[in-house]
């Protein structure tokens, strides 16, 4: 009995230490657990895979450093898939941090890995403030808001923007979203009213907010947090950071389940004792 009382009154700093080690150790000594894909991730993969070469895809970066570990791996995997399919990718951001995040992804994948040409095969238009008002505005007239890219080039001089005058001129929209404004706003003000095919990758915490749109057929699939990114990496056969981090994620989840079980046993034992 005393053991369970001791367990029940454990200093929270010991819990912090245990969870810290459970995350830290697998990062140093990976277990290489196999990643299993889920149907919603496969839906995203299939939607992107069915795009024809030369399709214009708008990728919106709605995340920042605070959620970078979850979304960046999916942004990288998505960029690889899109560029392998020879799609033309236009990046934009509804979060100010998003334009820094998109620059990291484009520099690494489009520029260094694929050696693509800025303005022809991809471009980064950067951030515009206003959230859903930006979406609504560019749904009508893209160039009223975006007149230049992040490097200061005029949008009118970019070959990739030829024929793009509103969001409706894109073949596909992909929202990499960590909250508001993000996937929900893209569905409400672009995908649904103008019937533009869309898909998204979100933070785990946002998944339940978006899942009714996915199951309702309003968007094609969803990449759910870091595990969604790992699944996508598996599907494109290029394992990267998310796959590597799945070991730490697995062990931490298991530990939290153990915490819940132990905490409840201690609670039940103490309640019985009181009764």
């Amino acid at each position, binding site marked *: 009995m005393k053991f369970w009382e001791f367990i029940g009154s454990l200093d929270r*700093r010991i819990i*912090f230490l245990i*969870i*810290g080690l459970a*995350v*830290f150790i697998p*990062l*140093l000594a990976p277990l290489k657990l196999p990643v299993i894909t889920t149907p919603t991730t496969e839906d995203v993969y299939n939607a992107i895979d069915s795009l024809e070469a030369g399709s214009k895809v708008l990728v919106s970066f709605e995340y920042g450093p*605070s*959620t*970078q*570990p*979850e979304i960046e791996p999916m942004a990288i995997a998505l960029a690889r898939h899109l560029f392998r399919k020879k799609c033309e990718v236009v990046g934009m951001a509804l979060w*100010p941090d998003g*334009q820094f995040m998109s620059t990291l992804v484009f520099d690494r994948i489009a520029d260094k890995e694929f050696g693509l040409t800025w303005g022809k095969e991809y471009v980064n238009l*950067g*951030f*515009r*403030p*206003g959230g*859903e*008002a930006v979406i*609504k505005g560019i749904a009508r007239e893209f160039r009223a*808001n975006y*007149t*230049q890219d992040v490097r*200061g080039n*005029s*949008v*009118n001089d970019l070959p990739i923007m030829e024929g793009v005058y509103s969001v409706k001129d894109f073949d596909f929209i992909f929202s990499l979203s960590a909250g508001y404004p993000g996937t929900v706003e893209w*569905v*409400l*003000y672009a995908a*649904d*009213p103008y019937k533009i095919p869309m898909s998204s990758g979100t*933070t*785990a*915490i946002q*998944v*339940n907010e978006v899942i*009714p*749109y996915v*199951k*309702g*057929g*309003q968007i094609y699939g969803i990449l*759910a*947090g*870091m*595990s969604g990114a790992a699944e996508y990496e598996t599907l494109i056969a290029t394992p990267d*950071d998310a796959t590597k*981090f799945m070991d*730490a*994620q697995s062990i*931490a*989840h298991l530990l*939290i389940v153990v915490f819940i079980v132990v905490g409840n046993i201690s609670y039940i034992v103490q309640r019985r004792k009181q009764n």
Partner: protein
Amino acid sequence: MSRDVWILVSLGLVAALTAVTIGFISWGVSNHAIGFGFWIGSLLTLGIFSYLYKDNAFYKFSEHLFVGVSASYWIATYYWTQIDTNLWGRLFPAQFPHAGHQQNLFYVIPLILGLFMLARMIPSIGWISRWSLAFIVGLYAGLRLYGFLQSNIMEQTRDSLRPLYIPGSFVDSLNNTLIVVGVICALLYFFFSREHTGAFGVASRVGIFFLMISFGASFGFAVMGRISLLIGRFNYLIQASDASTGYASAVVTAGMVLLLGIGALRSRGDTQEA
């Protein structure tokens, strides 16, 4: 020395460090060559993490630095991405040719409404900011009324109207029935204009079960998300402990543990004396 003096001396040291940092950057010293960014990044990362031990000066410093830097970061990015291109660019196209706009003097209206917003800082004329706020509220209301009606109500209702019996597929029939029953019962739970008793009470109770499963899933996703972010930060600290960075995070961790340890011993000594 009093607590205030200690804090001021520490802050003085940190301010000196900040000044040296800015000096280094401004004089063009390559940050990547000396891994200087990793040192600052590690210091701030561990400064925030030190809160797990207890509230302390490192954490407070990092927290206040975050607030100050964020505010200016937002102002600068918002200004350059909107005001410079889409406001000045329309009002003064000759002076801002890079914006690529033609002159449109109607844009003096959002400028005035924006300035009205700033009037909130002066209590005597603060009420004028209501006009700017009214514009924002009106646009939001007009956008959301239609958006939510179509995507959240109509589309969700449409997909919930599923056939309860699908010939040859027991599982699909069961799933569809559960979704239809679950959505209706959970919506009934939100209906507070009637007392939850009798058949209505049973339905709303069933609704609670579906909502609880949904909250459980949200909890699972919340855990997943937070752990992912922690993994990201730990991965950064591992990268920052590389020899090329001068073992930045390892040294900073050791230093911080030492300082917090000394602090703990001092406070224990003070308590015993008292």
